[in-house]
């Protein structure tokens, strides 16, 4: 190749317009694994989600198939705009219904000029439809409002390299009522999550949620997740090992009843299956 053609390419290099280039696929999924990531799906995209957790009850002569306990959160999450997502779901075992709004405030730019981080605001509300059982005992159940809890998060993330992304999630949780006087109604927590892409379609993810003021009436532990995400075509699968037993923020952040280890009763296996439907297809 002659020198001149290279000169022509160099000339073209200067012709690129100065349009900002934003990072994509900081986490790829709208959840790191269990908790929300900064990602939103684009406008007109519906995610059909089945999140599952399985665990055993210790010292029990169990005849259950595979696992003693199974809970699933079935949810629909829709991109109202490229930056705003609305979602609602229900969890089977604890009977919790939740709805959320998620708004992407700042997008990380690839060039040095723009924002070095992405910020997404998250707000949910949850309702405990059961009066007792998993995750429900710490609330009063006299009227509708008593059974609600609200989680606000500021999700802050940076894609450091094409492989590695990190997120911190300052979290505020408000429970509308407490069955026990010693329990705080407001909790502060800090989530830390990371993704490491190991192949074109596979990444390893981890999350940890530190509670600043945990519940006092029961022993709770910080939620931890170690998982693998498999992202392909219209289907995303997320596998996880965790100690959490709920899939709604206020439950797994403040009410995880045991620490993370591999013994029966503590170990929880989970997987999320997300099917992505595009209702607003562009004509290329």
């Amino acid at each position: 190749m002659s020198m001149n053609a290279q000169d022509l390419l160099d000339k073209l290099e200067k012709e690129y317009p100065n349009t900002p280039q934003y990072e994509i696929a900081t986490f790829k999924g709208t959840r790191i694994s269990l908790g929300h990531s900064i990602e939103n799906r684009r406008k007109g995209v519906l995610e059909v989600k089945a999140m599952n957790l399985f665990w055993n009850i210790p010292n029990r002569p169990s005849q259950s198939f595979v696992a003693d306990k199974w809970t699933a959160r079935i949810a629909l999450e829709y991109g109202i705009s490229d930056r705003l997502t609305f979602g609602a779901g229900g969890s089977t075992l604890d009977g919790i219904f939740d709805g959320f709004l998620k708004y992407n405030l700042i997008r990380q730019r690839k060039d040095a000029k723009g924002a070095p981080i992405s910020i997404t605001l998250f707000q949910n509300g949850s309702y405990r439809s059961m009066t007792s059982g998993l995750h429900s005992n710490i609330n009063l159940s006299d009227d509708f409002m008593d059974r609600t809890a609200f989680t606000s998060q500021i999700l802050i993330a940076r894609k450091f390299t094409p492989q590695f992304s990190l997120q911190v999630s300052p979290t505020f949780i408000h429970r509308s009522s407490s069955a026990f006087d010693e329990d705080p109604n407001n909790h502060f927590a800090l989530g830390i999550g990371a993704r490491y892409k190991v192949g074109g379609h596979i990444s390893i993810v981890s999350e940890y949620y530190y509670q600043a003021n945990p519940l006092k009436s029961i022993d709770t532990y910080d939620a931890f997740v170690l998982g693998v995400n498999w992202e392909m075509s219209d289907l995303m699968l997320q596998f996880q090992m965790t100690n959490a037993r709920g899939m709604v923020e206020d439950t797994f952040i403040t009410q995880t009843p045991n620490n993370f280890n591999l013994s029966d009763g503590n170990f929880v296996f989970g997987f999320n299956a997300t099917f992505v439907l595009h209702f607003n297809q562009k004509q290329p």
Partner: protein
Amino acid sequence: MNRIIILLSLLINFIDADNRSDQVITRQGQVSFFSYTSVENIEAKNNQVLSIIDFSKNEIAISMLMNAFVFKKSLMHEHFNESYIESDLYPKATFQGNIIDFDPLAEGIQTKMVKGTLTIRDIAKEVEIKTSIENNNGTYLITGDFEVVVKDFDIKIPPILAPNIAKIISIKFRFEYQPYEQ
């Protein structure tokens, strides 16, 4: 003396201007690609392709950003950039080559071979593409299509998705050039 300098500078300007008019450019070139399989048809289009031709040597250069391809499905755009092309690491695709036996002064349509190097994901491949070039009063329209083999550019497709993505991708292009002004 002053006159000579003015004359000289005019002459130089003239030569310079003449050189410049030898080059034509487009900033809105179109490149689309198609992957047809029995399972799924995928198409994408990039409307912001840059290209320049130097007629003094009949040399052509093309450059484009991979993340400027628009897909029907927004998630496909993410998969394309993050899982296949890895546009974080290889943001651009380029072509540099020569138009063989082309007469830039002849009006009308000429069908010519373009020979050169196509670079995707930092992997360079020699290609020869049959193109139609239309000279319409100093603006040039170049169109054509060709095929690339996915494997040539080390693009990894997981076995489970192999039926969804064609092994050979067809590519169409359309560039409308205007005289290049510095």
